[in-house]
């Protein structure tokens, strides 16, 4: 077993430095899908999340429970739903989007939206109420207040993005169902690792795992620096 891990580390180094086209295809697909879906999810979810966090309204508690439930939505079920919508007999079947990166982005987007809404809402709510009063007493309107709160809770909001991104890039079931794990087209880190393990290519599987973890680490490190950058 330890042999395979050492072999995997060596293979990871070799694959990266030889610019192996298959590995680069996998890296490219994984990041394109995860970043695009997280980005669009953030565009949609952050306004909604902060709005819910800011305002008090009837049914807020119910809505919060609903969002919390969807934050833990089983990815394979989401994959199944998107699959049924996009498959030949489905409502959007004529678009021919099944087994494409777009289908994967749609599934990941739908999974990321509740996560960013939930974390965004919690971030806004966790801001000290005194700050809210101060800002309002200085004569700010609601839009200005909203912006101040976002600025103050940006660390938590960015952490929310990271959670959503981490979930997107490490997810297997949904991308396997709607993407189809097609070589050179929709194969990601996770689906590739499943395949390599099934084929008994443990070295390659571990190599991909190491690359995935390293890239995620670098990304997280960069974002953490960014978060604390303007102290």
């Amino acid at each position, binding site marked *: 077993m330890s042999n395979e891990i050492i072999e995997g580390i060596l293979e990871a180094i070799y694959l990266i430095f030889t610019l192996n086209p298959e590995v680069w295809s996998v890296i490219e697909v994984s990041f394109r899908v995860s970043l695009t879906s997280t980005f669009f999810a953030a565009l949609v979810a952050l306004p909604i999340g902060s709005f819910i966090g800011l305002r008090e309204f009837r049914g807020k508690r119910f809505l919060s429970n609903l969002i919390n439930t969807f934050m833990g939505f089983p990815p394979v079920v989401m994959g199944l739903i998107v699959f049924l919508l996009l498959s030949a007999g489905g409502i959007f079947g004529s678009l021919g989007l099944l087994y494409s990166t777009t289908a994967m982005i749609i599934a990941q987007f739908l999974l990321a939206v509740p996560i960013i809404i939930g974390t965004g809402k919690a971030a806004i709510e966790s801001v000290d109420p005194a700050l809210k009063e101060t800002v309002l007493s200085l004569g700010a309107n609601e839009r200005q207040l909203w912006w101040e709160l976002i600025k103050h809770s940006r660390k938590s909001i960015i952490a929310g993005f990271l959670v959503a991104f981490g979930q997107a890039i490490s997810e297997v079931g949904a991308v396997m169902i709607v993407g189809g794990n097609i070589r050179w087209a929709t194969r990601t880190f996770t689906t590739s690792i499943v*395949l390599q393990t*099934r084929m*008994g290519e443990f070295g390659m599987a571990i190599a991909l795992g190491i690359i995935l973890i390293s890239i995620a680490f670098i990304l997280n490190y960069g974002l953490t620096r960014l978060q604390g950058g303007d102290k």
Partner: protein
Amino acid sequence: MSGKRSLKTIISEHKTVFLIIFILIIGGSFGTFFLLDILSARNPSRITLATTTSTYDSGLLDYLLPEFTQKTGIEVSVLSVGTGQALVYGENGDVDVILVHSRSREDAFVNDSDLQTPYGINRACVMYNDFIIVGHENNPAELLPNNSIATVMTKLKEGIDIGNSTFYSRGDGSGTYFKELFLWENINVTPDVEWFGQPDKYTETGQGMAATLQMTYQDANSQGYTLIDRGTWFSFNDTYTNLKILAESVVGEDNLLNPYGVIPINPALHSHVKYNSVLRFVGFLTSDYGQNLINSYTKNGETLFHAAFGMCNSTHNCPTTEEEVSFWKSYQQEFD
């Protein structure tokens, strides 16, 4: 109401005790399951078989194994994977016996010529079925029923090159994938180089047969083709009604035949394998009784697998030696 409250009080007064009891219950049940797993791993009346998705998905094993368990009391746990992975499981001694279809790799698995202990011993030929090519019924590559497989592959290649056909390949190291590579090789085509990075022409799914067939069916331009074993096809032909068999073995041609071999894992290499129980299992499969069961298994009125122990010859692509037949004789007697 007061009873409920007093229970609450009791719990809050003895928090530590309840916490310890709680941990003991949870930990104890995990421990018990763990222990049960260890015990069952050593139990000779339970063997583990790694096999290909084709034998499992077609329902054959669900049909055969209860008969075996009833006769011997030995239960068989099945890992349904591709041939490539089944062989790796076997090499690592993670399973007791494998049932696979890729003759060249099976021979390498039992090969003892290079002074190395072979992974498996006493391979037995069990049965065969055949591969077919299915595709959308509009058949853009214009395959004809009497085409030889070489003609079929050439037409598919032309269709792929001009873009009116898409071939869905397993691409996963399975027996079916190796058969497909062999068929391309016969017309001097190497798919990886030929259509490198063109997944809309040559789609490597990296998934099982059922998933690959599904993807062929879903092909956006209704121009998908795939190679599939007949057994799996008859499990799905009712579902995918616009897919049809477009090429199959013509008389006198055995390139599409698909022989299955069963190989016990070598106890000299992995002393923990339950070799004696495996011998009885292979005896069951190769006995007249087991062979008749295989022949009698049908789906939608079609025989899916043909028994082949002892009568394999070169035309069935799976030669059986005298040695193989005589070795298993004594283990078959239990069932005949």
